[in-house]
Structures are given as C-alpha cells and as structure tokens.
C-alpha cells in the first residue's frame, strides 16, 4: 500500500529529533498563548510567525502547524473554563462546556474534548494521506481559469462565513486584493501604489498586516472594553469522564469528525461552520434536546471533534491545491511562499518530505496536545488568572521583535502600527479583517491566473464557464451562496451564536 509507505516516510521525517522538538515547541507555545485570555489563534500565529522564518522549511511548517492546533485547542479550554471563546469555532463549546464547568464537571468536559479532538485528528491524518495525492493529481489538470475560479470560490465563501454582514466582508476581500497589488508588478516591473517608498517596492509583508490587524488592534479593543471573566478554578474536578459520559460521547465524536472533515476540506469554510453544524446535528439527534444548553456532554464532544477535524482537514486544500480555506490557512500559505515554496499540487511531488512530514507531525502533535493538556490542566488554569495588564506588553514585545526581524528595519514597524490603527477602526465598523487577509494573500496569485486565463482564451471572459471543471466550480459557488443565504439557515445560525 502506497499510503502506508508514504506515511512511514512521513513519520521518518517528523520523528527526527529536530522536528519533534519544533512540533513540541509549537504545540506548547500555541496552547500557552491560546489559553491566555484575549489572544485569538490568528494573533497567536501572526506574532509567532517571524520566529519560524529562521528555521528550515519543514521544521518551520511543523512548528506553525503545532502553533495552529495548539492555539485552537487552547481556545476550547478557555471556552469551557471561562466561557470565553478564543474564536468563532469555540463559540458553541461555550454553551454546554461552560455549563458543565459550573456544575463542577469541567474535568470530564476537558477530557472529552481532548479525546474527541484526538480521535478526529487521527482520522483526519489518515484522510489527508488518503485523499491528498489523488486530489493533487486532479489539480495538476487545472489550468489558470480553474485556479482563478477556485480562488474566487474560496474568497466568496470565506466572506459569507465571516462575522458581520456579507456585503462588508466582500468589500474587505476586494480591499485585501487591492492591498495585494502594492509593490512591483511581476509581469511588467511597474511600481504600483508604492508612494516612491523603497521598502514598498516588494509589497507589504503579510505578517505586518496580520500582526497589526489581529494582535495590535485586539489589544486596543481589549483595553477599551475589558472583559468580565470568572474562572471556575475551585473545582476542575476529576478528569475522568464517567461510563455514561463516554457512552453518550462516542456517537457525537464520530459524527462530529465526519462533519468537520467535510467542511474543513471545502475551500472557504472551516472550523467555525463545522462546530456549529455538529452542534445542530447532535441537538437534532438527541432523545432529549432540552438537555442542550444546560451541560450536555454531547454538545461538547461533537463540536470539539468537528472543529479539530476541520482544522486539520483545512490543510487538504491548502497543501494540494494551494487554496487556503480560512484566515489561518492563508497565513500558513503565506509562510510557505516566504520559504520559497510555490503552493499548489506540485508541493507533494517536489517536496515530499515537507508534505508527508507535515502530515505525520500532525498526528504527533495531536498526541502531544493530549499529553500537554490533560495532566497540565492546573497550569493552564493558573495562566488564566494572569491579569491582562501583564500580558499585553509581552504580546507587544514579541510582535515588535518579530516585525523588526523581518527586514531589520524600523519601517515595517511603522506600517504595522498603521495597520493596528486601521484594524481597530475596522473592528469598530464591523468590517471583518479575515476576508481582507485572505484577499491579500490570494491577490497576486489571482491576478496572475486571471492574466494567464485571458491569454489562453484570447481575452474571452466566457472561458470560465466553457471549461467543464471551471464551470463546476462556478455552479458549486452559486449553490453554496444560495444555501448560505437561505432564511432557515440564517435563523438557525442566529439562534446558536445568539
């Protein structure tokens, strides 16, 4: 079986001392910062990203992936213990997880979330190994029109699913695309929007925007509206779920994994929609739906498995097609490009060590998360009590050093400060920065593919609907838009996120 040979090769890469170490550091830092209040996964990845630039590509990606699921996981811990979701994906975990914590059952809730995530992680590792290669093979047949439409699809769906209104999200995508134009045009060498500033001729680094918009503006907003937090530290209780808990959770974990794997793989969707759907499924399937909302363990098991499954399967489109499904995946894609790797189906054949090593490391990372989280839960609880006024100068220190190290010049810091300001204004105007980030990273790729598509078709825009694969993507996009706009779904989404 080729898949096993590939996985064994992957493990031989991932299990080298250096890579295990970076995977561990990534998971540890990710969880650490993910647990800390007031810092979401996007900000975590953004501020730690510059550190990984100094590493070899495989180690860097392994560490980044570790940070990513560590942060995600840390978010679940805070949703259960403090009712504060680090990001939208953990919103639903709050509903029943926090109730369980209030009933003194935080321990089982955390344990089930760990077990569910681990199960989902294992299945998804296999799924990526299984479906990655055929998908990449298929993607090799794609030409520029297909890529352009696929990127369009990812951006539109991402805008649909972003928080806030769709119109503004789409406008933010366009703004991101426009920001992506800054710098030297690859085709003609023309300087675009560079204001005669030397540093802008290479364009703006995505880390600068990410740190400004996600880390700095997040701090400003936290300082303006301090959150109320009450930690249930007195009794995390026994970690072990009862036999009844286990029996109730098996179904939700399996269903959650399936839901998460499905949505994670679709470009543009991601963990948030998965955990939400999984919660809806469990509530529908339950014999007594009224238990949901007052500490039903199914409401933790399902969504937690789903969001971990989605978080991992999101790597499928990112690694095989070069299309990021979410804001965090866009950052990972950006990191790939910084390391000089052209994202797309060729990654697997040209950099097999990176592809298979990364996949194997995901499973290793999942083991580490369980090991890190359950026995050390006391430490994470203690961290939750650190006052914010000690935290944010630390975030600033990390962010500033990271930005300065990009180019060893202060100009990048001025830019990041500007994006911090802008990011806060966008927050106030309820314009989600995530679609902007996706647009920014995909912008140059989209322009290139659009140009090539037009060359192929001799300037005929109908090329996007006359080629079968491209047409299929167009139809899929339209269908998804219609489904997402259906009043029934909108209403349900409103019910959940309240």
């Amino acid at each position, binding site marked *: 079986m080729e898949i096993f040979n590939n996985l064994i090769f992957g493990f031989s890469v991932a299990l080298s001392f250096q890579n295990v170490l970076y995977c561990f550091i990534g998971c540890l830092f990710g969880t650490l910062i993910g647990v800390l209040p007031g810092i979401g996964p996007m900000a975590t990845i953004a501020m730690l990203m510059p550190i990984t630039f100094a590493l070899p590509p495989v180690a860097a990606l392994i560490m980044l992936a570790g940070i990513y699921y560590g942060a995600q996981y840390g978010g679940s811990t805070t949703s259960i213990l403090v009712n504060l979701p680090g990001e939208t994906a953990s919103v639903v975990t709050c509903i029943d997880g926090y109730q369980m914590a209030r009933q003194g059952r935080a321990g089982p809730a955390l344990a089930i979330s760990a077990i569910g995530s681990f199960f989902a992680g294992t299945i998804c590792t296999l799924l990526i190994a299984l479906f990655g290669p055929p998908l990449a093979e298929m993607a090799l047949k794609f030409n520029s029109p297909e890529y352009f439409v696929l990127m369009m699809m990812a951006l539109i769906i991402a805008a649909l699913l972003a928080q806030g209104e769709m119109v503004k999200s789409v*406008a933010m995508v366009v703004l991101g695309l426009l920001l992506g134009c800054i710098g030297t045009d690859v085709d003609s060498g023309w300087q675009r929007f560079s204001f005669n500033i030397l540093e802008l001729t290479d364009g703006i680094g995505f880390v600068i925007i990410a740190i400004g918009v996600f880390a700095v503006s997040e701090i400003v907003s936290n300082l303006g509206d301090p959150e109320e937090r009450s930690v249930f530290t007195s009794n995390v209780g026994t970690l072990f779920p009862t036999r009844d808990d286990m029996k109730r959770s098996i179904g939700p974990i399996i269903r959650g994994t399936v839901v998460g794997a499905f949505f994670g793989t679709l470009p543009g969707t991601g963990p948030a929609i998965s955990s939400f759907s999984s919660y809806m499924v469990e509530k529908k399937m339950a014999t007594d739906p009224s238990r949901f909302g007052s500490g039903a363990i199914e409401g933790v098991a399902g969504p937690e498995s789903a969001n971990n499954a989605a978080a991992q399967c999101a790597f499928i489109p990112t690694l095989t097609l070069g299309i990021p499904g979410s804001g965090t995946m866009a950052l990972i894609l950006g990191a790939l490009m910084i390391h000089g790797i052209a994202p797309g189906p060729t990654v697997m054949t040209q950099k097999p060590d990176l592809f298979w090593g990364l996949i194997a490391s995901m499973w290793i990372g999942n083991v580490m998360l369980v090991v890190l989280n359950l026995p050390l839960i006391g430490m994470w609880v203690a961290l939750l009590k650190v006052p914010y006024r000690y935290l944010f100068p630390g975030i600033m220190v990390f962010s*500033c050093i990271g930005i300065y190290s990009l180019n060893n010049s202060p100009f990048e*810091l001025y830019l990041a*400060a500007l994006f911090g300001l802008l990011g806060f204004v966008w927050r106030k105007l309820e314009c989600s920065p995530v679609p902007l980030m996706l647009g920014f990273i995909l912008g140059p790729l989209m322009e290139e593919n659009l140009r090539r598509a037009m060359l192929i078709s001799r300037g005929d825009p109908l090329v996007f609907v006359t080629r079968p694969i491209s047409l299929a993507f167009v139809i899929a996009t339209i269908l998804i838009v219609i489904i997402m706009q259906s009043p029934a779904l909108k209403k349900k989404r409103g019910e959940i996120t309240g």
Partner: protein
Amino acid sequence: MKLELRSNKDFWAGMMFFIIGAGAILMARHYPYGSTLRMGPGYFPVVLSIILIMFGIYVMLRGLRKNEKIQGNWSIRALIVLPLSMVIFGIVMEVGGFVPALIVLCFVSAASGREFKFIEILLLALILCVSSVAMFVWGLGLPYPLFQKIW
C-alpha cells in the same frame, strides 16, 4: 428622524471603502491599462477600485437607511499610545539598541492600559528583556546589538 452621521457605523464603513477606492483609482490611472487579452499593470487595480467604490456607495447608502450605531468604547488612549509604542520601538532600536528599545516599549505600551504601577512595569520589563535577549539574540541568533554606543 434625525440622522446622526457621527456614529453611523455603515456610513463610515462605506465612506472608507469609497475613499480608498477613489484614491487607488486616482493613483492607478497612469498605470498602463492594457487590454483584456494582455492586461497591463493597471488593469487589475482599476477594476478592483471600481468594485470597491461601488461597494462603498452601497454600504454608505444602506448606512443612511439603517442608521446603526457604532458599539463600544473608542479607547482613544490605547488607540494612540499602542501604535506609538511600536514607532518608538523602531526608532530606539536604531539609535539605542535592543535592550533600551525593549524597556521603552514595555513602559510606553503599558501606559496605554488603565493601571500604571511603576514598580510592576519595571519588573515586567526586566523579565521580558532577559527572556527576549535569551530567546532571540542568544537562542535564535538575531544580530542585534544589545546596546548601541553612539553617545
């Protein structure tokens, strides 16, 4: 009903899209546009700017109709001081070196918070300084002088 433009959320969001779009189109109008077949460097930006302007107008008009207010505080203090701390870090990094820049960054950024206790911040700054030097300069080998000797 009296329209309150000052805090009209969508009006300002639309205005922002409009201004950025209009600014971009003004700058991009001199870039060679090319044709649909052979797109010049101006093609993509101009098309994007036009789309952005249209979105801007739409969002602005909708804001006038819905008249929703901006929520929460503006936290002007943090909004000014925090970005400023990054700028100052950049400047001190060039003239003073790594350690002074970090200390200044800690103090200035801490000043954007509600509580400012000198001793606390000093301790925090020292801890952050030692750990950053250990991690970034000794650990990752970033080539920054701890102190610049220019005075």
